[in-house]
């Protein structure tokens, strides 16, 4: 028996224009949990996709129990009992829980008739293992996000995997569900399964894992080290190459400031109840919550994409009715930077000019003058320059820019529109540390000029860096609002206890 059950050695992989992984190695032992850490964009997902046969490495070798293996498709990996819980949703919404769990097996025998009672009976076993109390015949689309996540884990377990990869499995789980999951994972470890655990929550990693591999900019910052003896700060330093910094910005006082955006007892068609939330002029309010808590959904109700059913929305102290997104932008001065900038924020096949100018077309067109590039340019250029967007010209296609520069453009277009309230959803997904720090300064500066900013983020350090106050959301309600002291330990425990409190009740 080889010392390591699974090894990835000297893996390199490049995509057009990006070197995603460079000489990365990872060695997983039997009966152990191996943490894979790294910032967004460090290459974790690429590595996982290589290990599960979705991508093929340009160089390097995968070994299972000491023998080199080639994986050309997800099926290959499954056949070698390498299972994975991907970060993105991986379920067929209209199929039942049981059928989703066994989808892999079904694909292998296309003409063997299905026997649902049998299928449901078998899937019960995996659901019980996860303490998940749902009927296997329920369609997945009826489940909560957290339950879907657990079904995905059940799906991976049902493959009877020897090597199990978990890409941020706890992102949408409550603390209670996380505890249950960890018990299961520890039991699997005792049964000999080798697991790779990807998480941003370093506390979890410390509690659960035995070894750790850290990626930074597509390279190994640490390679299969024992986790023992490494503290949170050490891990952060490995991940970002320097000490974690919560920017030491002075606290600001908004007692006298007037509210720019206020929600009073708001309920929405998407299921929010009794939302009270105030963002004052010049203030940054953070909205924290787990994935699926309803934060992005709330933002979309504020900008008029979905209806507010009860309560009142006040802009600059006046109760308003926001009927549409156009209304929100042009009449009320509310801008929304989407968390999914590729799908919702930018038109990748259009130029920088067209993207940043999209919010000013209507305004510029008012007097019946034609929309010339020159007129649009004069409106947006100051902002593009102020944000230091690195682009050869305004005619460059946005799709060719880096993630950070794309994000700057999605902010620039709102600055150009002159919004008074800016909602920023997960501002630093997929951008590097340096740009992230810069973006934070930018948002801070923006608020200093009087813009009210509502920041939605699941990144705790980011939240504690940016926010003046933090509102905690859970299950489509606001659980409480706390003033940010910028003390990481204190703030994170207070935020978690607000989410916990609900859990305990």
């Amino acid at each position, binding site marked *: 028996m080889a010392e390591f059950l699974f090894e990835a050695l000297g893996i390199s992989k490049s995509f057009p224009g990006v070197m995603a992984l460079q000489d990365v190695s990872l060695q997983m032992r039997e009966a152990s949990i191996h943490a894979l850490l790294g910032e967004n964009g460090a290459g974790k997902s690429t590595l996982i996709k290589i290990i599960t046969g979705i991508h093929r490495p340009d160089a390097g070798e995968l070994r299972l129990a000491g023998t080199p293996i080639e994986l050309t498709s997800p099926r290959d990996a499954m056949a070698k009992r390498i299972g994975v819980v*991907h970060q993105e949703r*991986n379920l067929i919404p209209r199929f039942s829980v049981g059928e989703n769990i066994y989808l*892999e097996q*079904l*694909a292998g025998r296309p003409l063997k008739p299905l026997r649902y009672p049998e299928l449901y009976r078998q899937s019960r076993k995996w659901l019980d293992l996860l303490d998940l109390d749902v009927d296997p015949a329920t369609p997945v689309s*009826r489940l909560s996000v957290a339950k879907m996540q657990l079904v995905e884990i059940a799906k991976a377990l049902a493959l009877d995997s020897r090597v199990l990869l978990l890409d941020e499995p706890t992102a949408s789980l409550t603390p209670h569900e996380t505890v249950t999951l960890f018990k299961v994972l520890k039991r699997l470890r005792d049964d000999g399964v080798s697991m790779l655990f990807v998480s941003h929550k370093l506390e979890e990693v410390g509690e659960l894992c035995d070894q750790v591999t850290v990626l930074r900019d597509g390279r190994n910052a640490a390679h299969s080290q024992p986790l023992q003896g490494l503290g949170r700060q050490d891990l952060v330093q490995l991940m970002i190459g320097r000490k974690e910094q919560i920017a030491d910005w002075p606290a600001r006082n908004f007692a006298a400031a007037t509210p720019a955006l206020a929600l009073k007892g708001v309920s929405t068609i998407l299921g929010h109840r009794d939302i009270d939330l105030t963002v004052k002029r010049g203030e940054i309010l953070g909205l924290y919550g787990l994935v699926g808590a309803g934060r992005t959904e709330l933002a979309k109700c504020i900008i008029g994409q979905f209806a507010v059913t009860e309560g009142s929305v006040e802009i600059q102290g006046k109760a308003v009715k926001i009927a549409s997104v156009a209304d929100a932008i042009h009449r009320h001065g509310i801008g929304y930077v989407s968390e999914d900038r590729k799908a919702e924020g930018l038109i990748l096949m259009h130029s920088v000019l067209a993207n940043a100018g999209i919010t000013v077309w209507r305004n510029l067109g008012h007097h019946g003058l034609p929309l010339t590039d020159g007129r649009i340019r004069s409106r947006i250029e100051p902002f593009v320059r102020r944000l230091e967007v690195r682009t050869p010209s305004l005619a460059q296609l946005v799709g060719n820019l880096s993630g950070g520069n794309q994000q700057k453009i999605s902010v620039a277009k709102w600055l150009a529109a002159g919004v008074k309230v800016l909602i920023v959803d997960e501002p630093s997904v997929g951008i590097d540390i340096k740009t992230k720090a810069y973006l934070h300064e930018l948002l801070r500066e923006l608020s200093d000029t009087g813009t009210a900013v509502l920041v939605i983020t699941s990144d705790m350090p980011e939240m504690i860096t940016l926010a003046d106050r933090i509102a905690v959301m859970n299950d489509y309600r606001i659980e409480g609002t706390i003033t940010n002291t910028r003390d990481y330990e204190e703030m994170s425990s207070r935020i978690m206890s607000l989410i916990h409190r609900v859990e305990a009740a």
Partner: protein
Amino acid sequence: MQFLSRYGRTDWFGPLLVTILAAIIVGSLSPSFLSAFNIQVLLLAVAINALVAYSQMIIIAIGEMNLSVGAIGGLAAISFAGMMQVWHMPILPAALLGILIGLLGGIINGVIISLTGISAFVITLASLSIYKGINLGITEAQPFYGIPNLVKHLGNAPFLGPLPWLIIPTAIVGFGLWLMLTRLPIGRCILAVGGNRHAAELSGISIRLTVIVAHALSGAIAALAGILLCARLQIGQPTIGDDWLILSFAAPVIGGAVLTGGHVSVGATTLGVVIVAIITEALVLFNIDPFLVQVVLGVLILWAVGINRLREFRLKPLRRA
């Protein structure tokens, strides 16, 4: 009330209600509607149109569309008639070869779509033109008249009461599709690919193969529809299939199919065909301009899409249960 809300959520309940209502209303206004002869005529139309609808339905299931169903059906029909007239081929081999041609046409669609990754809309638009062109090249727009009497008989005569022979192949195909989509992994794979292509791929389902299988089935079923229509019309008409496109989408949509894929119902699609047939029939019985059928069909599609939308919306609150 609970009964209503439970059945209201199924795909077949609404169309069934409309079918019954339409039959009662038309039947009471025009008693000849329920005569044995009229029912036979109705079933003949349903037998062929149901196949047309199924051939599109299977492609809707994977979240694509097939604009070439009519062209494939037409090509198979004239091949069937031509092989019998020109080569004096016996009926069964001619029919099988006709279906094979359809199968091949579908496979070509599927292979090109899955290899190039270009949208099915464009590929089948092109193949529509190609298949139709081959049809016109062979026939020079002239029908084949040499259809054997047995085929003419099977294409029109009943075998029991008002039940025509043509209903038998359709029933077999319908049952087969239902079995496949609900009980066979290949059918579930088709729906999985339509429901969430990415997830299906990560679950080890071969997208390529699934897409090809769906298009192959679609082509074969369209060919069968063309052959049956040829038998029904008693000539190998080169224009067979020209007017199938709207109906092929209308019936699945009336039957609650989701055009983005992942959800179709064989039973409800069949009811959709029946509804269209009843309305067409009614317009004839009441001496209304048959061109109005097109308008009614259009309104019906809008109505069905609206109902589907409403049902989706009512299902939504259950999301967080």
